[in-house]
């Protein structure tokens, strides 16, 4: 067991290291430099580039970068967007709002998805099931930004129930209500995914022998479903939700832009356009860390619960 955990963590660190390297190279190979300003004299430019080590070959730049990361948690310094500020700090400022958006939308998605999934499975082949299945197809198919646009136009503009854009400086009540639409827009697809998974899983389990036994011992349909059938489906669900988290964080980029939420997604686009390379690398690493971390958690929980996973991956099966 300890060996398994150690292996997975080592693999995750290795993955992260490779990503770090690729991200660094790709971003540095992008055309243009932040110091390509015609107003700067050549001598000033030279001093600036020297200070940022840009005059050296890319491999040496990479070594400097690695040294900074490992020895003093220095992810480079932002030059354009927030000049002089460490890239790490710039991101840390933006994380709370992005994380709040993503966490809350997933927190909402799980109970709703579970509710609809259980309902559809229990009322299998009735109108309720059909309605939920149609809803699932819509939720999975309609792009989040189309859905968000509809919400923005009808609920915010036509009916005026919510602010059209995110209001970071307003009172708490207004701020919260301005978060409702983006959260809702982000939660739609996770709700549909969870519902679809649970419905499929439960329909299969509901006809199994242990469900008959559960009912024979006197449980009603609902109790039997929640206590016995759901437990079977719970473990894969956790991994689906964790994987979704990584996806949602990436997907919130466009929602953040539509509702002008000052989060990490916007920072990414802005830093790329401003050629603020250290910041871009740092944001990329942030996203990569989230998906590597979720993958690691999934692997570890699976390994603990299901011994077959630990044994997997032998040659020539």
């Amino acid at each position, binding site marked *: 067991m300890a060996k398994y955990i150690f292996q997975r963590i080592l*693999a995750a660190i290795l*993955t*992260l290291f*490779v*990503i770090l390297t*690729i991200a660094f190279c*790709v*971003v540095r*190979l*992008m*055309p243009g430099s932040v110091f390509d300003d015609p107003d700067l004299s050549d001598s000033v430019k030279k001093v600036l580039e020297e200070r940022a080590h840009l005059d050296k070959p890319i491999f040496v730049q990479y070594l400097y970068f690695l040294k900074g990361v490992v020895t003093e948690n220095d992810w480079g310094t932002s030059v354009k967007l927030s000049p002089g500020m460490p890239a790490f700090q710039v991101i840390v400022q933006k994380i709370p709002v992005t994380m709040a958006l993503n966490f809350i939308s997933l927190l909402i998605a799980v109970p709703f998805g579970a509710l609809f999934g259980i309902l559809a499975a229990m009322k299998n082949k009735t109108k309720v099931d059909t309605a939920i*299945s149609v809803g*699932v*197809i*819509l939720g*999975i*198919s*309609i*792009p989040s*930004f*189309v859905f968000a*646009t*509809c919400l*923005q*136009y009808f609920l915010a*503009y036509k009916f005026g129930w919510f602010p*059209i854009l995110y209001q970071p400086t307003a009172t708490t009540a207004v701020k919260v209500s301005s978060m409702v639409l983006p959260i809702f827009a982000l939660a739609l697809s996770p709700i549909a995914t969870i519902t*679809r*998974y649970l*419905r*499929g899983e439960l*329909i*299969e389990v509901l006809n199994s022998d242990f469900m008959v036994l559960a009912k024979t011992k006197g449980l009603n349909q609902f109790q039997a479903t929640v206590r016995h059938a759901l437990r079977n489906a719970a473990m894969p669900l956790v991994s689906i939700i964790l994987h979704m988290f*990584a*996806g949602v*964080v*990436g*997907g919130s*980029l*466009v929602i953040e*832009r*539509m509702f002008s939420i000052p989060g990490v997604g916007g920072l*990414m*686009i802005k830093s*790329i356009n401003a050629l603020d390379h250290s910041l871009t690398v740092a944001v*990329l690493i942030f*996203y*990569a860390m*989230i*998906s*590597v971390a979720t*993958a690691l958690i999934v692997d570890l929980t699976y390994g603990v619960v299901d011994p077959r996973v630990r044994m997997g*991956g032998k*040659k*020539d*099966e």
Partner: protein
Amino acid sequence: MSNQVYEQNFDINNLDPADFVLINKGEAIKDEVSSIKALGFFKDAWVRLKRNKSAMMAFTLIMIIAFFAVVGPSMNKWGYNDQNPTWTNLPPRIPGLAGLGIADGTRILENRRTDYFSDPNKYPEGSILSYTVTGNVNGIDMATVKVDAYKLAGVPDDTNFLFGTDYLGRDLWTRMWRGARVSLTIAILAVSANIVIGVVYGAISGYYGGSVDMVLMRITEILGAFPQTIVATMLVLILGRGIRGIVTAMLIRGWTGTARLIRAQFFRYKGREYVLAARSLGVPDRKLIFRHILPNSIGPLITQAMVSIPGAIFSESFLSFIGLGLQAPEPSIGVLLSDAQKTLLTYPYQMVFPAILISILMISFNLLGNGLRDAFDPTMRGVTD
């Protein structure tokens, strides 16, 4: 053959050959010929698919959209980039629907000075349909007017823009179908490239297994750790905003799903006896992979392709939506949506048609994908609808 009762006292050593008759003489022994015609793999799947109503409807819708994507842009006289500065932002006017009060080319304008209403330079004759006075500013009555936007802009009566025009006066009908064509092209290009790469990669990984598999799968894991949207953003920035850049962006990790699927299929089939038999006959690896093992995966592969098309359409419009789509004036569904988003509150109709189109496309491809999966693999039926 008849059961003759022989007399009991015959002599076993003295049998008369004349007593023996050859049975079945002159008639061949054959199995009964089945009256049912054998169904091939694809025909069998097609029979099942035909019974799936939603999948067939989705298929029809996709065909209709594909037809318009090919024919639609040349159905009227406007090109996708014909600009007309005086005919900007015209609402849609569809001749048959005008009686119902929708898509009749009218628009409501608020806070207009009533004293200008009689000025034919500002309001050409017949352009004002009705108005209500809402207030009075500096002695001038202000009104909410319902105008015929086509007359107001001086468009001839027989000219209709079915989906309206955009901020440069371009016909949205032409642009939308051309956009659909571009989006579908990008999706099909990206998906077929993904399938080819994924099949070869997954086949090698699954067939050789062991350390080859370990290394190859680690690579896909690393690629998978990058969020798709972020990778796409980066690549479009490096490669430029064109079809090439967008397709490459989708390629970077799009094929890993196919690779995993094919790898799993290879693990399932490579130990089978028929593979062993072929190998003992000296069939080379390449032929074993592509001729003997890969055809087992054709069903899941087609399903996978169909399911990834909506993903590709989504990625394209996503990139356009954050401003990294195709370069103007080339339209795509994403470009149209993103343009419409800018004027959403004033001209919502510009959003309606592309939004409906992309939703129908995504839903149809998903439904067809589900239907195909059920058709190719009936044991999976209804597990995930």
